[in-house]
């Protein structure tokens, strides 16, 4: 399914912000979700911030963070293992690559059940935040 290039325009629930459309090519989203480039240092700050939830599951090169999760691969070397576009799709909707994954889809609003009122109709991260994090992950080359 995800091997075919597809132009996705996810449905926008009433009152919710519309998601930026994006195209999946192979196992990647090659084009950025925003016009402005992601900011590496903002991306790092987001990844280590507990509220972004990454380090609940992942560990990585974040010596200042005492508590890191061990539910998921270490993020060190992500930039060696994956291209920018591959990392973008993993953040936007990891379940397209592995339907059984526990990694949340950070830029998706459809196909979810019983989302709490506070979060309903909103993606976990904004397009800008995704781009910042992708820009940072690309720099993780061990």
């Amino acid at each position: 399914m995800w091997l075919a290039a597809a132009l996705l325009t996810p449905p926008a629930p009433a009152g919710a912000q519309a998601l930026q459309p994006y195209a999946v090519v192979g196992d990647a989203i090659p084009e950025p979700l925003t016009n402005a480039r992601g900011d590496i240092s903002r991306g790092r700050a987001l990844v280590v911030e507990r509220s972004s939830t990454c380090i609940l599951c992942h560990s990585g090169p974040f010596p200042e963070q005492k508590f890191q999760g061990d539910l998921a691969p270490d993020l060190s070397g992500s930039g060696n293992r994956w291209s920018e576009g591959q990392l973008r799709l993993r953040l936007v909707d990891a379940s397209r690559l592995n339907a059984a994954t526990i990694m949340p889809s950070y830029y998706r609003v459809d196909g979810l059940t019983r989302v709490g009122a506070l979060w309903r109709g909103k993606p976990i991260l904004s397009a800008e935040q995704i781009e910042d994090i992708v820009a940072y992950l690309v720099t993780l080359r061990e």
Partner: protein
Amino acid sequence: MRFLGAIAAALLVAGAVGAAEIPQADRRSGYSFMKPDTKTMQDDDTANPGMLWVLDGETLWNRKVGSAGKACADCHGNARNSMKGVAISYPAFDKATGRPIDLEQRINSCRTNHQQATPLPFESRELLALTALVARQSQGASIETGADPQLAPFIAKGRELYMQRQGQFNLACANCHDDNWDKRLAGAAITQGHPTGYPLYRLEWQSLGSLQRRLRACITGIRAQAYDYGAPELVELELYLMSRARGMPLEAPGVRP
């Protein structure tokens, strides 16, 4: 045997969703994941903050309330005798409503029907104290919840909820508590989610809290809509979890980080 029937029914309904259940021999209480000092706090009555609620519960047990002017003790005598081994079967089937009710709801049904008093709010100091008192009388006894065959369809519903992915994070209880209980979510041990210690004192809460409070916290944690206190779904989850913990000793009042 009756219990096996309940489990079989549960498996039938839930069907293919299932991750493997944790084998009996590998079942571990949240207690076993804790640091030594927190374990000592639970084990030592003089250090366990939950005992303050148990003591309060004894006072309330003997206090006459409601328009019937009766205390719990007027019907049940000394809780140390009459409440022994009661908590190990909750949630239990309630004939009046035809549904399972948990220990808090049982206490409140005594208040409305027998004491003719207003029900105590969920998570109120009084309700937690009375629940802690009753649960404490089963400390060390093996959990038996689910033996009543009338509970089978409700256990099945609870299991379905447990297996269902939900919320903005799209996670099921089973994704953490069956598939990843040996791992850590940032600093926290995930545990197998056995409700052996409730009501329990949570250091993070700085208070005693009910199992429903804990479940609502996990549901909000995955950014799903938490069920209201007393909602049938929460009781069904409690029921499934308690039936899943059968054979494990009740620890109430427990302590958790």
